[in-house]
C-alpha cells in the first residue's frame, strides 16, 4: 500500500465515527474495538475530512487558519492521516 498523497481524498473508513463527546468535553474517534481521543491538531484536521476535500485542500485551509507555512502543515497532515490510514480508520 502506498502512503497518503496530497492529491488523495481522505474519508473516514466504514464503521468509523468521529464525534464530539459531551461527557468528556472532547472529540472522539470510534470504531468497533477502538477508541481514540485525538489531540487538538488532529481534531482540526479530522474536522475537515468530508470525503470531498483533498489532503492538499485540508492543509491549505489549516495553513491559512493558523498562518503557518503551507509546506510544513502539509507534511504534518499527511503524516497524521497516513497513520490513521495504516490503522484502518481513514480510507481514501
Amino acid at each position: 500500500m502506498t502512503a497518503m498523497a496530497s492529491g488523495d481524498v481522505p474519508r473516514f473508513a466504514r464503521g468509523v465515527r468521529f464525534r464530539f463527546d459531551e461527557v468528556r468535553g472532547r472529540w472522539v474517534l470510534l470504531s468497533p474495538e477502538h477508541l481514540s481521543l485525538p489531540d487538538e491538531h488532529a481534531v482540526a484536521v479530522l474536522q475537515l475530512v468530508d470525503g470531498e476535500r483533498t489532503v492538499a485542500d485540508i492543509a491549505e485551509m489549516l495553513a491559512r487558519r493558523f498562518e503557518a507555512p503551507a509546506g510544513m502543515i502539509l507534511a504534518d497532515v499527511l503524516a497524521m492521516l497516513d497513520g490513521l490510514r495504516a490503522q484502518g480508520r481513514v480510507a481514501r
Partner: protein
Amino acid sequence: MSLLAELTHRCPLSCPYCSNPLTLDAPAGELSTAEWCDLFDQAAALGVLQLHLSGGEPMARRDLPALVSHAARAGLYTNLITSGVHLTADRARELAAAGLDHLQLSFQHADAAEADRIGGMRGAHGRKLEAAAHARAAGIPLTVNLVVHRQNIGAIAAVAAMAAALGAGRLEVAHVQYYGWGLLNRASLLPDAAELAAATAAVEAARAAHAGRMLIDYVTPDYHADRPKPCMGGWGRRFLNITPSGRALPCHAAETIPGLDFPSVRDQALAAIWRDDPAFHRFRGTEWMPDTCRSCDRRELDWGGCRCQALALAGDAAAMDPVCGRSDRHHVVRAAVADRPGLPPPFRYRQAPGRVAAGG
C-alpha cells in the same frame, strides 16, 4: 469506556466455547425494552461510548431495531455481535435505518459441514453467508469473527479469504478463552504450541495478503504465554457487562467468582454501581493485588491479569493469574497444554436456557 449488553441468553447455536455462563438466564427474566433503553441513556451519561449488543443471539429479541435506534440517538456507537442466522434482507435494512454502526458476524469455519458441527446448528453456515451479503447490501460495515481452537485452527487462511470475499472490512481471529463452556470443553479446544505457531503465521500471511482492504485483529491464547493479558483492561476500569436479567458485571465471567454479590440495574443507578458498588471495587486498581503483582512494573499494564482464570486454575480469584511465569501455580497452565489428549473428546454443547447439556 464500553458496555456489553447481553440482551438474551437465547441462541439457536450452541458453540462449545460460548461465553455465556453455564447456568443461563431464563427468557422470562430478561430486561424489557424500556429497561434497556433507560440503561443506554444512563450509560451514555456515564461516559460509555461503545455499546456492544450481544447475547446469546441478540436478534432473538424482536425489539432489537428499537434498542439500536434508542442507543444511536443516545450517541452510543452501536455494534451488533451476532451469529447472523436470523438476519434477513429486511431486518438488515431495518437495523441500518435504526442507525446501527457496525455488525460483527461470527463464523466457526470456512467449511460448511465443519462450521455447522462446531456451532451445533445444521444450516447455520449457509445462513451466515447470506447474512453477510444482507448486511453489506444494507451498507452496514462488517467484521467477521472467528473463534479459533484446535478443531478449526488450520482454517484461518480460508476464513480470511472468505471474509474478504464477503466484503468484511475487518477480521477478528480470537483464540478461545477458557472460562465456563470453554473451560468445560478445554481438552477439545486447546491448541498445542505447534498449532499455535502455525495459526500465528497464518494470521501474519493473511494480513499481508489482505493489506489495505481488510484489517486483521488477533487475540492470542494466554495458556501459551508467560505474562497475563490485561483482562478487560483492568477490573472495573473501562468495561461493563449487563446480563439479560440486568445484573451488572465487570466482565462476562465474573459471576463464577464466589462471594461477590453483583448489583442489578433494576435496583440501582448505573453510575452508582460503577462508582460505589463493592463488587466493582473488589479488584479495581492495584490495592487488592498479591505482593508480587503490586511490586511488579507491569501492574498497570496487565492489572494482574484475569480474576476468573485465577479462580479456575488456582482456586482463588485473588491469587496471581497462573498464566504469569512468576505465579507459583504456573505449572498448572503448562500441564493443561502438556496433558492435552491426543484426540479431542466430543464437545459438550449448551442447550436452551435453563438446562445444562452434557454429551454431544
